[in-house]
């Protein structure tokens, strides 16, 4: 502190009593800056945690959707492989209801072989789905260049997404005219489309 000349008789504050404003201000500003830095880190942490949560929720939704798609394909196939000669019309109507797109338009032609087989055999069929999986890899078979496209073009307008599901199933047909039950092994590729939240079958491809 600079010494100042004061008139005689004037009271002067003792040096100890004088507040050290500059030290306090410095300390406050250091704590202030530190608090600001902590605040910025906290805001960044909030943003990061929100991003992590959103990403995880999307991943969980995706897994839930795939499970629903597999369930829809399994239920549809279960009706297909359990058709009997007396229930074939009702079963096919039920299957038709759950189709969409090209398969829905050409449903009669697509299921004609199955209808004829069931009616011809006059059989009592019991089938079970052995395996269902969302297709992860697919290789076109050589010499089958004329495979139908994965998803019909017109479907893209109203289906939010389409996934291919592999279904492996076995059915046993007991024919009244034969002694030996006939085992049918099914290996199918089904396209499952999301139409306004409802999952419908948009393509049926037996793998031969």
């Amino acid at each position: 502190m600079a010494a100042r000349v004061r008139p005689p008789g004037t009271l002067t504050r003792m040096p100890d009593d004088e507040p050290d404003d500059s030290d306090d201000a410095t300390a406050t500003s250091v704590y202030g800056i530190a608090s600001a830095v902590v605040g910025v880190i906290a805001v960044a942490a909030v943003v990061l945690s929100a991003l992590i949560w959103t990403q995880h929720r999307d991943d969980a939704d995706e897994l839930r959707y795939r499970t629903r798609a597999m369930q829809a394909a399994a239920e549809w196939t279960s009706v297909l492989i359990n058709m009997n000669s007396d229930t074939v019309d009702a079963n096919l109507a039920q299957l038709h209801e759950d189709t969409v797109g090209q398969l829905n338009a050409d449903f009669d032609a697509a299921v004609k072989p199955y209808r004829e087989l069931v009616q011809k055999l006059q059989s009592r069929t019991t089938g079970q789905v052995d395996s269902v999986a969302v297709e992860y890899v697919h290789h076109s078979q050589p010499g089958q260049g004329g495979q139908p496209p994965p998803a019909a073009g017109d479907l893209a307008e109203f289906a939010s997404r389409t996934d291919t599901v592999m279904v492996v199933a076995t059915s046993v047909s007991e024919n009244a005219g034969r002694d030996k039950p006939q085992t049918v092994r099914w290996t199918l590729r089904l396209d499952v489309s999301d139409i306004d939240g409802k999952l419908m079958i948009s393509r049926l491809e037996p793998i031969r």
Partner: protein
Amino acid sequence: MRTAWRILAFDVAPPLAAIAALTYIGIALAWPMWWVAVFSVLCVLIVEAVVVNVVLARRDGVTVGTDDDGPRLRLAVATSAMATLVAAVVVGYLNWSVSDRNLRDDTAEVVGIATEVSEASATFTPQSPTASIDKATAMMSPQSAESFKKEFASVAKDLAGRNISAQATTISAGVEAIGPAAASVAVIMHGTQNSPGNRPDTAVLALRVLLSKQDGRWLVDDVSPIHSR
């Protein structure tokens, strides 16, 4: 106005942020019993601190956020809240982001291994009868490899004796189920058998490949036909 901001930034936001972060950690950990206990204790402490702050504010007219003589306490409060938020990010990253990414990577890996093993198990060349078996068993666990070799030794001998060759190519493959340490993959293949003097015999083969993760590596435990009959 400045006082209002300080109250918001140091008296209101930190306890709310800390409780939200602790809840976030609980959700990420799926609320194990130990975290329920820790969460309860920490929440009680936070609420208690808020109550003390409010009571002292009513008595002295100054809060932690507006007290000019307590910058250290203010920084401590902000740092505690920030540390809880950072902990929430770390726990969320490890429990969600890392596990989701591992699941995606594992899915690709198990499908790749399953298709290779399936194709190898349905492929046979009389000139090198053990080649495809060796290729398949290289991706199997030791016990499975042993039983697989035993099972196919007699078949390979028979096929080699009759000069029959077989090839298989994958048509489709997908994961039936997968977890951090086990997976089941369905593989549909097109198999062709060639024997001298006969037309090639083709068939669709559907195999289920069971895998488990051992020491960070996916190994095949079993390969079996999917069709129940």
